[in-house]
């Protein structure tokens, strides 16, 4: 199969105005991907599918990624004149990147037996314009998976034939796979809580009093005080 650079050059030649960017993957898998701009997504996808050398006729899966607002720190060494002398000073600049949602498609070719080619699209933000072009018209197998991303991440797919929630019910309002999703506060007792669950357990159930606390003090008030405190906490939960 061609390299991503070659594919990128050929797309740009075939689809005028399309801006393609190669997103590097630093992990050992080295699965770099093509970032496609939303306006030309349909044309680019159609090209990838019908191009005789690529023939990416199989969309294996569609995934969503949630990126929160983040700040990227960059340290650049700059030559500056300080007190009449030229010195090299490290200058740190902070860049704020607003959050966005990403949709990733894994494409293979059944006829040419190659792949995957990974393409991704980004929404403008995580709220009103969380919107990309649906590629269901190009790969029919994307229909349910785009619906799933709509359900769990809240990405709206323009031109999707039937954009409804697929796993959660229609009345549901949240997007559970987003990083800032807050699940309903319905913790119930578990015998062996740990990690996050332990945190929830502490919030809902008073911790077991230590042996030291339970030892009767001289006036015998200690124990009854603790039991009183626990009883009021239990009542608050009801």
């Amino acid at each position, binding site marked *: 199969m061609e390299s991503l650079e070659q594919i990128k050059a050929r797309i740009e030649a075939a689809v005028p105005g399309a801006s393609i960017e190669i997103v590097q993957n630093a992990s050992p898998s080295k699965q770099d991907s093509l970032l496609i701009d939303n306006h030309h997504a349909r044309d680019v996808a159609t090209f990838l599918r019908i191009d005789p050398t690529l023939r990416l006729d199989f969309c294996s899966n569609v995934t969503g990624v949630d990126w929160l607002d983040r700040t990227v720190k960059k340290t650049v060494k700059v030559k500056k004149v300080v007190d009449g002398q030229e010195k090299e000073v490290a200058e740190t600049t902070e860049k704020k990147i607003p959050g966005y949602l990403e949709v990733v498609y894994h494409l293979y070719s059944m006829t040419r037996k190659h792949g995957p080619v990974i393409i991704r699209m980004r929404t403008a933000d995580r709220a009103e314009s969380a919107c990309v072009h649906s590629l269901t018209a190009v790969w029919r197998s994307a229909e349910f998976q785009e619906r799933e991303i709509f359900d769990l991440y809240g990405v709206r797919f323009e031109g999707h034939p039937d954009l409804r929630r697929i796993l959660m019910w229609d009345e549901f309002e949240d997007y559970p796979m987003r990083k800032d999703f807050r699940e309903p506060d*319905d913790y119930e007792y578990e015998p062996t809580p740990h990690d996050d669950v332990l945190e929830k357990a502490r919030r809902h159930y008073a911790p077991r009093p230590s042996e030291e606390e339970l030892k009767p003090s001289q006036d015998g008030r200690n124990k009854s005080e603790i039991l009183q405190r626990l009883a009021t906490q239990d009542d608050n939960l009801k």
Partner: protein
Amino acid sequence: MSEGIDDSLRRELQRQGVWVTSMQELYNWGRKNSIWPLQFGLACCAIEMIATAASRYDIARFGGEVFRPSPRQADLMIVAGTVTKKMAPQIVRLYNQMADPKYVIAMGACAISGGPFKQGYNVLKGIDRYIPVDVYIPGCPPRPEALLHAFMELQRKIDEQKLRGANKAAHLNSEQPSEFPVPAFGKHDLDPPLNSKVFRPPAIERP
């Protein structure tokens, strides 16, 4: 044993070829040996339930082989598998549509407590939040032997039901509800998240 007849007299009569029984025993004996389950499964536990119904384990030995596809004809609901919050209202509705007397076996870790999905946002933490459960089977999934054991426990339970008196069987007691409210789909969770008349979340009891 039947009320109103001496046990030794009964044994003596039986030796002479006269079998004495009570209405209650006969009624319970008939019911416990013909329990028709509702034919539905929710997840991997359903595969074990199918194995239990098939030839190797053969639930027909206990009178439970007639799986009915309609709740109107079923006596027993085997909740076999994960109950998602999206599925829970339909399960309660099916239970409501079953005719009395009706029984529920919660099969597997998910059906009794939510199992490995207990801390998730989309799985009900046990079907006993909305409907009364007669027998709970732990396991992930429980083996067919465990389901047969639960079935026999249910038979034992039916055998002990009273026809009269203060603690008579629920289906004969007009004060006991036979239908339970179906939860609605809320904005963030089911509404209500549990039926407090059926279920109370566990509280720590201290001495």
